């Protein structure tokens, strides 16, 4: 439907007038791509219409760099027209159902079921029910096995793809790893099959040996009587025994989207983004991204500076964010901030450096950041005692924390957020009490600074979430603590953190349990997710929409319920993700788990190779010649 036809429709207007923030749904943003004129003049077999879907609201999806990167990469090809589609908020969802209207793409209002391929970018487990809702609103059968040759193929990717087994029956294909080259390559293969009028089954066979392309129907887990997995059988002879993730080896030459879409409404992260490196060298034992994105690969300083200059000109944003898993680990951070400030300061553009490590917040960098912006500062010690920080391999000392806080206070910061995780393996009551003590001592640090050298007021926020054991981490075997234990730990903190300068915030108990169940879940959970969705679960990541009773009822359908999935796993247990390969070996994780139990740390990749397995790609920090590596360290 052309833009003119769309906005001339009274029905369209009447629906938009009944929903909150209608601009979410109408598109028309700067740099949004509408190829309809040329694209639809191609013959049907020559073109591939791709719906890039994000199963959450527009404001969340448009804050996500993956959407911008994939949108740009796919639309580079003339024969691909990639459009976007986000989950409708509950008001629009109800109106679509009441009026029997399908969910449509943003750019041309094409119903989702008319696309060739539908690709979901999945970033967290609590978005799963929104996938089902979007498929259902499109009139597309939920289960891949129920879809016919006229239905689109449904593909998923993103960080949770490392264990999408609970959702596997709903997807035709799951993409593992870096998507910017892999997804266009997949679409290219799809087009070849489409032009040759070959079946989807043939297409799956063609692509199943490509790096990062996982065809769930080619693998079949079977279970023991107690519910644990016995084995995951490869039922298609041509499919690889293990599917290895796709990895961009030359990250410096991956294109940075030249013309990112600039949303017309305020989105959650409303800024231009520079991905300075991908992967992480640190090895925090709870962090899934820290392992699944390995090895660390940097972009060169020159490329980033050029990209920043261009993005400032073409987007007009008043903030630029440097994106990575640990910003201060960028080997040219000092030079980069020095190069960016002359561009940003005169134009009133804030420079945002999220994911700064505490031990890097010092001297020049702190002073420079203070000049730009003195909004809140967030530090993540993760645990209250040195013992527990060593267990999780945070590699941060108490001195690092106090030095960073003192630097912040002396540079005028008056809001400090501290992030901790509760329920970590081996955690004791002392560890939880230590969070209170640490916070109080940080308050004393501020008090002890002469008044003329610090801010007049201070507001500290202590924020806690509950540890969720994740696949592809050394803690993938660990249990999640019970809700009763969560409540007790949270109460201990709430009672202890009673100073008027401290506010305490915590994550929901029940949604943490659902997240933990789904994170390490198997295919049997697909019926649980479907049940929860049919009972009304939708947009579960939103506190106001999450209904614990729905999930409790749904999980009771599985023998053992939630406890079966949150339990500690046997050392030799077959994981639901056993047939997937993200580079880091199971052997490495086993070794790391033992070191955690002994309270011993492993140094970062900067200090020496810990032989995790990712050197197979021979790129980034794994290259012997890597400039970001110094082979001086050994494991303690």
């Amino acid at each position, binding site marked *: 439907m052309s833009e003119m036809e769309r906005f001339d429709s009274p029905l369209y207007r009447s629906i938009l007038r009944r929903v909150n923030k209608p601009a979410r749904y109408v598109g*028309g943003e700067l740099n949004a791509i509408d190829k309809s004129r040329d694209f639809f003049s191609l013959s049907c077999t020559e073109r591939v219409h791709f719906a890039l879907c994000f199963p959450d609201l527009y404001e969340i999806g448009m804050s996500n760099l993956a959407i911008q990167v994939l949108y740009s990469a796919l639309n580079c090809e003339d024969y691909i027209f990639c459009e976007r589609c986000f989950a409708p908020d509950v008001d629009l969802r109800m109106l679509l159902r009441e009026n029997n209207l399908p969910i449509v793409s943003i750019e041309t209002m094409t119903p989702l079921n008319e696309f060739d391929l539908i690709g979901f970018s999945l970033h967290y487990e609590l978005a799963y029910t929104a996938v089902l809702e979007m498929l259902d609103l499109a009139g597309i059968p939920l289960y891949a096995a129920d879809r016919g040759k006229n239905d689109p193929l449904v593909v998923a990717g993103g960080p949770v793809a490392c264990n999408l087994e609970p959702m596997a029956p709903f997807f035709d294909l799951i993409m593992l790893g870096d998507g910017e080259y892999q997804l266009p390559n997949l679409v290219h293969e799809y087009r070849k099959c489409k032009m040759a009028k070959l079946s989807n089954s043939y297409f799956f066979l063609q692509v199943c040996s490509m790096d990062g392309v996982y065809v769930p129907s080619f693998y079949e887990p079977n279970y023991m009587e107690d519910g644990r997995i016995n084995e995951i059988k490869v039922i298609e002879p041509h499919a690889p025994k293990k599917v290895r993730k796709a990895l961009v080896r030359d990250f410096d030459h991956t294109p940075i989207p030249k013309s990112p879409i600039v949303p017309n409404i305020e989105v959650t992260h409303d800024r231009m983004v520079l991905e300075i490196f991908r992967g992480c060298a640190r090895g925090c034992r709870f962090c899934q991204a820290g392992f699944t994105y390995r090895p660390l690969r940097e972009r060169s300083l020159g490329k980033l500076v050029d990209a920043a200059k261009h993005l400032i000109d073409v987007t*007009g944003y008043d903030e630029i964010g440097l994106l990575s898993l640990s910003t201060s680990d960028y080997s040219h951070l000092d030079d980069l901030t020095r190069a960016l400030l002359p561009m940003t300061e005169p134009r009133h553009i804030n420079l945002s450096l999220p994911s700064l490590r505490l031990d890097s917040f010092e001297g020049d960098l702190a002073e420079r950041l203070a000049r730009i912006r003195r909004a809140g500062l967030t530090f993540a010690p993760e645990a209250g005692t040195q013992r527990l920080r060593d267990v999780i391999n945070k590699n941060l000392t108490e001195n690092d924390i106090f030095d960073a806080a003192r630097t912040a206070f002396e540079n005028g910061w008056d809001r400090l957020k501290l992030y901790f995780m509760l329920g970590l393996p081996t955690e004791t009551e002392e560890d939880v009490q230590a969070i209170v003590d640490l916070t109080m001592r940080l308050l004393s640090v501020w008090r002890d600074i002469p008044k003329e050298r610090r801010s007049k007021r201070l507001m500290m926020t202590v924020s806690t979430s509950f540890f969720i054991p994740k696949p592809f981490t050394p803690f993938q075997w660990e249990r999640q603590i019970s809700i009763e234990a969560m409540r007790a730990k949270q109460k201990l903190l709430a009672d202890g953190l009673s100073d008027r300068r401290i506010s305490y915030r915590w994550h929901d108990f029940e949604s943490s349990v659902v997240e933990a169940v789904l994170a390490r879940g198997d295919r049997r959970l697909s019926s649980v997710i479907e049940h929860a969705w049919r009972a009304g679960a939708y947009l579960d990541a939103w506190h106001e929409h999450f209904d614990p009773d729905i999930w409790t009822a749904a999980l009771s359908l599985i023998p053992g319920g939630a406890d079966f999935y949150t339990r500690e796993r046997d050392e030799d247990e077959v994981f639901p993700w056993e047939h997937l390969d993200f580079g880091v070996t199971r052997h490495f994780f086993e070794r790391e788990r033992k070191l955690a139990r002994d309270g011993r740390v492993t140094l970062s990749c900067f200090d020496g190779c810990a032989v995790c397995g990712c050197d197979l790609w021979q790129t980034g920090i794994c290259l012997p010649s890597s400039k970001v590596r110094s082979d001086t360290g050994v494991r303690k």
Partner: protein
Amino acid sequence: MTENSGENRLILYFARHGATAWIAHLDNMRLFERAFNRAGWPIAWTEDAFNPRPILVFGLPVGVGIETRRDPVEVTLKNRIDVEPMILCLNRSFPQGIEIVHWEEAPNTKRSLMSLVKAADYRIEAPMIGPAYSLTFGGGRRVVVPWTRKGKTREIDISSRIFETYNIDNDSIEFKGGAGSDLHLRIDLLLDALVCDGKLSPEDALGARIVRKRVHCDFMS
């Protein structure tokens, strides 16, 4: 001669339609700020040390779902510019659907643009809205509708806020309504009044096309 002189303040008049008509006022302001940044306009900033903002003043907030044809926005510039080429550049920097259609130098007054706004011309299109409008407001009838804001409901005399009716067709009406701080006419309340009387269906009211054709300010001739 396109270079402005005197104070570095300009009034730009913008039209918006299509997708951009659904942008709320605060988002619209942000969109303009970014477009000025992209186009390299030397916008002056407030001198607030903690939260400096570019100095842009919209004459009248523009409601969600309302198209405009000539809404004023005042910009304060750090230095003089060659206006017309800069407007061409600015128009290229907007998303499709927004365009500057006219400009003039700001009047030499200390009053804010918002306080100078007095009225606005509207065109509303909906099936059988003309007869509904005539029956509701015809013969100088006083039409009062309830308006609830922040939990308090008060009665608003809609008819006294319609200053002039230009044209009535079966499926469209054109009129001048009050705008700004005195006697501001809310278009949703006008449509409510037509619906309340049962002359316009609620569905047609929701599906109406609303166009603000012009904003009248004190300094205009």
